[in-house]
């Protein structure tokens, strides 16, 4: 048990912090938040500085944390262009990796991961997009997706659709993942505006009308994609935990800075109630960090533990909203006129995306039970 990050990871952390402080200034962060546009220049800069490095997962994790500590919307935007990549890395074939993954890792293309539709989010098997096999072996994709990150800017999506009806008690069967290019005929995307937070990220609704998907764009085996999606979430949730951790830490940084800044004018920083607030928030953040790193450590040693992962995601997300809320309540008007108001809006998504807190709790309880039963 070693609680120090290895030197190379610590170096990435420092570099990420410096980058974020330099690039995500409060003015820039406010601007993208206000305009609700994707910061493509920041994506490019982050890429050229090497932060999108899937061969160094610890580096990506601490970079995510440090980025979101300064600004979550910009921070995620800097790393999210490769969203969904793990699914091709794990289940895709060599041609797919070459054609779709490599350009993303070279910073030339953007990917997205499209599961949710207007009728089903938590209930992944309840999605309604369909794939129908054509005579020539290709498929026709029909239906819609919503809330898709990178939706209006991605070049291609790893997308889940139903390829065959499933028996009522085995709803997770018959789901297939395909790679859909945004320039394929019949594909349309429309940005969804009016998000509460994370407004620098692009979110869109996708529609498919007889989009022809060549057979070679099926990832893995037809009908087995529910398993791929769950495997993906077991990875991505750790990065969400890191986002949440960054937000919580960033809120805490701002509290500390505030307490310093008011010292000459007020003794509020010496109040015991203030010290308790500091201690309570700090303790939760520390716990969330340990849980996140523990789950990451299992995963990055190729021994993922879904219980640890879901505990980390659930707890870190809750810590983000807890920290921001407590701190804002304390800072009051002094808080809502600064960065913290954006942190308040950004933090809430952590409890919703890539598995709501309720879904995480169901996974934790069910997986623990399975472990007990030795399944």
């Amino acid at each position, binding site marked *: 048990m070693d609680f120090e990050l290895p030197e190379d990871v610590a170096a990435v952390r420092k570099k990420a912090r410096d980058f974020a402080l330099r690039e995500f200034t409060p003015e820039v962060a406010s601007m993208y938040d206000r305009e609700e546009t994707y910061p493509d220049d920041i994506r490019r800069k982050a890429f050229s500085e090497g932060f999108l490095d899937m061969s160094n997962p610890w580096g990506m994790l601490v970079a995510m944390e440090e980025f979101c500590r300064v600004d979550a919307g910009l921070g995620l935007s800097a790393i999210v262009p490769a969203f969904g990549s793990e699914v091709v890395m794990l289940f895709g074939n060599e041609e797919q990796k070459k054609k779709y993954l490599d350009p993303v890792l070279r910073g030339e293309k953007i990917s997205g991961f499209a599961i949710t539709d207007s009728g089903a989010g*938590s209930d992944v098997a309840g999605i309604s997009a369909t794939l129908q096999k054509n005579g020539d072996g290709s498929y026709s994709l029909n239906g819609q997706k919503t809330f898709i990150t990178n939706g209006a800017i991605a070049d291609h999506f790893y997308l889940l659709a139903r390829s065959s009806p499933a028996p009522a008690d085995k709803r997770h069967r018959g789901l297939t993942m395909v790679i859909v290019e945004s320039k394929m005929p019949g594909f349309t995307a429309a940005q969804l505006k009016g998000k509460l937070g994370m407004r620098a990220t692009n979110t869109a609704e996708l529609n498919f009308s007889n989009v022809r998907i060549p057979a070679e764009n099926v990832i893995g085996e037809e009908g087995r994609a529910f398993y791929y999606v769950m495997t993906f979430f077991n990875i991505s949730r750790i990065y969400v935990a890191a986002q949440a951790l960054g937000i919580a830490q960033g809120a805490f940084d701002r509290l500390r800075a505030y307490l310093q800044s008011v010292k000459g004018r007020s003794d*509020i920083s010496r109040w015991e109630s203030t010290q308790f607030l500091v201690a309570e928030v700090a303790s939760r953040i520390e716990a969330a960090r340990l849980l996140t790193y523990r789950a990451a450590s299992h995963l990055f040693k190729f021994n993922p533990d879904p219980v640890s992962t879901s505990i980390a995601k659930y707890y870190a997300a809750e810590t983000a909203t807890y920290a921001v809320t407590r701190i*804002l309540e304390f800072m*009051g008007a002094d808080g809502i006129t600064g960065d913290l108001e954006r942190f*308040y809006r950004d933090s809430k998504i952590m409890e*919703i995306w890539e598995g709501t807190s309720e879904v995480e709790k169901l996974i934790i309880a069910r997986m623990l039970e399975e472990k007990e039963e030795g399944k």
Partner: protein
Amino acid sequence: MKLTEENQLLLSAAREFAEREVRGIAVDIERSGIPQPVLGKMAEMGFLGATAPDRFGGASLGTTSYLLLLETLARYSPSLAFYTYLQNTLVIGSLIHFQDSEAAGESIRDVSSGKRSGTVVLDELVSNTEGSNVSISDGDRAVSGSAGFVMHPDASFLLLSHADAEGSSLFQLNGGVKQTAENRRLGFRGLGFGRVSFAASKEESALLGRKSGQSVISLAASAGSMAVAAIALGIAEETVDRAAAYSKTRKTFGSRLEEYRPVAYSLSSMMAETEVLREYIYSSAGGGEKEGLIAKLLMTDAAVRASKLSMQVHGGNGYFEEYQIEKYYRDAMALEALTGNRNSDLGSLAHQMLGSGSASI
């Protein structure tokens, strides 16, 4: 809780007004402000001078009716409820202390009729540290200075208090006020929120009165704690109701959300908490500082949690403007920050209970 006939009448008038005039434009209000015609109708209904005595053209509603009005408006548009609170509780509530002054009386009349709107410098109420910076040049009573927290900065006049050794004076500035920066707006986006500087000449400013002790603005605010609680109540009720309705239609895994115990329990617990607080608010409507603090502290906290729960039940949909939950979520948090200061409220409540020697370390 028993409503009087006056309360009943007010409640149905407020509901009818909100249904007809507000429901359809609640999202627009957030984007482009409260339309003038709506304010005109509010004035006609007596809502802008709800608490003002009738000799000033006010509706002289009792406290309960006023709270019912705010609760109802907050359900539809917290921005509009806040505007109403600002005009009644803070502006008229400050002016009324000096109602014998002709200028104050005239201002109350104008606010009630909708002819003019007022606002106040909030700094002394809301900030942990900042006082506004005001200087008065005595000879000619010109007022200059700046303030960091002004909601509705484009009001026709601005009230500010100026403390000196003997007490505090209330000034009304009818000109010479300029917004120097826009503040970020977590909530109540239907109103402006900015930093202002002012340099009002003798002709543009009026000294409405002076008294010893606390400023009348802070007296008005603390007398208005119940009003804040009523807005929070409206937000909590509305968000819980919307989540309950959503839970009846949204299905996951083949079942309606309401069928899942965690969803149903959290909604019913939140409903229970809100109902108990509602009872408290109306049964203590005529109470003193302590009751006001209790209601405000507990109800604003409950509103934050209710709006959060509602967003959670709405899932991804809740995160987008269209469902309006995100608006209540922001407003709930902004409400406490813009109507006072939690740290000083907690201290005041402790003093009420334990005496002035308490809560000092």
